[in-house]
C-alpha cells in the first residue's frame, strides 16, 4: 500500500472511531451471545454423540482403520493423490512442498496483497482464491470422509495359493499383522498405503547399501529385488523406499519375513 493510501486509511478509521461506540458493552454483548451459542452446541453434541474408545493398541485385530481426526483428512487425502505416482518427488510434494507452500502463503498474505481496496466485490482475484481454497479443502475432507472402504478380515481367497504353502503362511501373517488396515488387496482394506493387489508385478528394486537390522539368510545387497526387496521393505521401509511413511515391522522371525515376501512377490502374477 502506498504511503498516501495508508494515511487516507488512518484518517478514515479515526473518523469511524470518533463516530463509533465503546467496545463495552456494545460489541462485547454480541461476542458473548455467540460464545454461549457455541458452548451450548458443544455440550449438545457431547450429549447427543457420546465419545467412544476403539480397540487398544497392539491387539491382533485387523478391523480398525488408521485415520486421523477429520480436520486432517485433507492432508491425508492429498497424500493419496500423489502417492500412486511412485516416484520420490510427488510424495514429498504432498507431505512437504504443498503444505509448507500453503503455510508460507497463508503467513505472507498481507504482504502479497498490498492493494488498498477492501470491498470483496472489487477484489475478484482474492475472492476466487478464497473460494478455491475453501472448496478444495472441503472437497478433500469430504473425499477423506467417504473414501474409506471397510476392512474385511482374512476372508479373501487367491487362486494359486495352496493350503500349507509358504504363500498361505504369508497371507495369514499379512491378515493378522495390521497390514490390511493400511493396504487394500482385492477391494478390501484401508487406503493409507498403496493398493497391493498387483504389487508383485511392479519389479521393485533397491540398492540400499547399509546393513539391515534383522539378518535374514540370503537377503543381502548390492541389489535387492524380488522377494529380497519385500523382506528389506517390511523390515525397514525407509531403506527400500526413501521417505516411506510405512511403519517398520522389525519383530518377525526370519522365516516369517520369507513367507510374507513370497506372498507379496507373487501378488498379481502367481497369486490372483
Amino acid at each position, binding site marked *: 500500500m502506498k504511503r498516501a493510501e495508508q494515511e487516507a486509511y488512518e484518517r478514515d478509521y479515526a473518523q469511524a472511531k470518533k463516530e463509533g461506540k465503546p467496545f463495552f458493552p456494545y460489541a462485547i454483548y*454480541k461476542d458473548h451471545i455467540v460464545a454461549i451459542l*457455541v458452548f451450548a*452446541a458443544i455440550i449438545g453434541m457431547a450429549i447427543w454423540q457420546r465419545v467412544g474408545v476403539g480397540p487398544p493398541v497392539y*491387539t491382533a485385530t485387523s478391523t480398525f482403520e488408521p485415520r486421523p*481426526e477429520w480436520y486432517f483428512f485433507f492432508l491425508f487425502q492429498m497424500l493419496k493423490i500423489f502417492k500412486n505416482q511412485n516416484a520420490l518427488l510427488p510424495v514429498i510434494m504432498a507431505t512437504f512442498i504443498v503444505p509448507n507452500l500453503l503455510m508460507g502463503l497463508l503467513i505472507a498474505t498481507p504482504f502479497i496483497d498490498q492493494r488498498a481496496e477492501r470491498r470483496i466485490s472489487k477484489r475478484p482475484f482474492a475472492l476466487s482464491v478464497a473460494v478455491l481454497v475453501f472448496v478444495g479443502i472441503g472437497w478433500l475432507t469430504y473425499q477423506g470422509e467417504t473414501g474409506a472402504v471397510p476392512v474385511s478380515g482374512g476372508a479373501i481367497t487367491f487362486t494359486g495359493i495352496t493350503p500349507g504353502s509358504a504363500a498361505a503362511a504369508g497371507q495369514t501373517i499379512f491378515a493378522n499383522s495390521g497390514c490390511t488396515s493400511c493396504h487394500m488387496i482385492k477391494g478390501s482394506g484401508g487406503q*493409507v498405503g498403496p493398493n497391493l493387489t498387483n504389487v508383485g508385478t511392479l519389479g521393485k528394486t533397491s540398492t540400499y547399501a547399509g546393513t539391515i537390522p534383522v539378518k535374514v539368510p540370503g537377503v543381502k545387497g548390492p541389489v535387492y529385488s524380488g522377494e529380497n526387496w519385500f523382506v528389506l521393505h517390511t523390515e525397514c521401509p525407509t531403506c527400500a523406499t*526413501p521417505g*516411506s511413511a510405512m511403519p517398520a515391522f522389525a519383530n518377525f522371525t526370519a522365516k516369517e519375513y520369507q513367507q510374507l515376501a513370497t506372498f507379496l512377490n507373487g501378488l498379481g502374477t502367481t497369486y490372483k
Partner: protein
Amino acid sequence: MSTTDIGPKGPVGQVGEAVVEYVDRRAGAKTGITWFLKRNIPSETSWFQTLGFAAMATFGLQAVTGMILAMYYKPDPTTAYSSIQHITNEVTWGWLVRGMHKWGASAMIILVFLHMARVFLFGSYKYPRELTWVTGAILLIMVMFMGLTGYLLVWDQRAYWATVVAMNITASAPIIGPYIADILRAGSNFNPDTLSRFYSIHMLVIPGGIATFIGLHLFLVSKLGITEPPWAKRAMRARRAEEAAARAAARERAPQGRREVTVAPATQPVKVEAGQ
C-alpha cells in the same frame, strides 16, 4: 442531591474501593481495563466479527475440560487406554467432560477457519493489521498441532497408527524432517516415552504458545481497533463524499464541466480522443 446517591458506602464498599485504589496506584489496572473496555470501535460491526472471540472462549473451555481430564488421565502406554475407559465409563460426568473436550476441539478448528475467512473477505489483514494476521496464522498452525498431539493420547488402534504414519511423514521431509520427528517421538521410533512426550506437548508446550499468541493477537486487535465492515453505512457515505470531491476537483480544472481533450502533436495526423 442526585437520586443515585444513597448515602455513605458501607464498610464492605469502602474496603472494596480501597483495594481497587491500592492496586490501581501500583499496577495501573484500572487504566488498562478502561483502555481495553471503553475504547471506541466503529459503530457498525458485523456478527461475523464475533468469531474470533468465540474461538478464544472455546480455547478457555478446552483449557478447563483439559484440566479436569488431566486429573484422571495417565500418560503411560500400559495405563493410558484404561484410564480413558475409566473416564468414559466410571468417573461422574467423565463422559461429558471428555465429549466436550473432543467436540470442543472440532468446534475450535471450525471457528478459527471461519474467523480467518471473515478476516480475509473483509480485507482486515491490510494495513495496519498485517501483524495481527501473522500472529493469527501462527495460532492456526498451533491449533492444528493441538489436534495432532491430542489424538494419540487415547491410545487406541486408529489413533496410534494414524499418528505413526503422521510421524513417518514428518520424518520424510527434507533436511530437518528427521530431527523434528525424533524430537516429537523422543527417539527414532515409537517408544514408551513417546506418549508422555506428546502429553507434555499437548498440555503444556502448545497451550503456553497459544496463550502467548492470543495475548499478542488481542493486544494488536485492541491497539489497532477492529475494522469497520467495508460496506458499513458510514464507510459508504465517506467514500461517496470522497468521490464527489474528486469529481468536483476534476470539473474545476476542465471548464464547462468537460473532460480535457488530448490532442496529438502536430507532426502526426490530428487525432482526437473523446472521453468516454
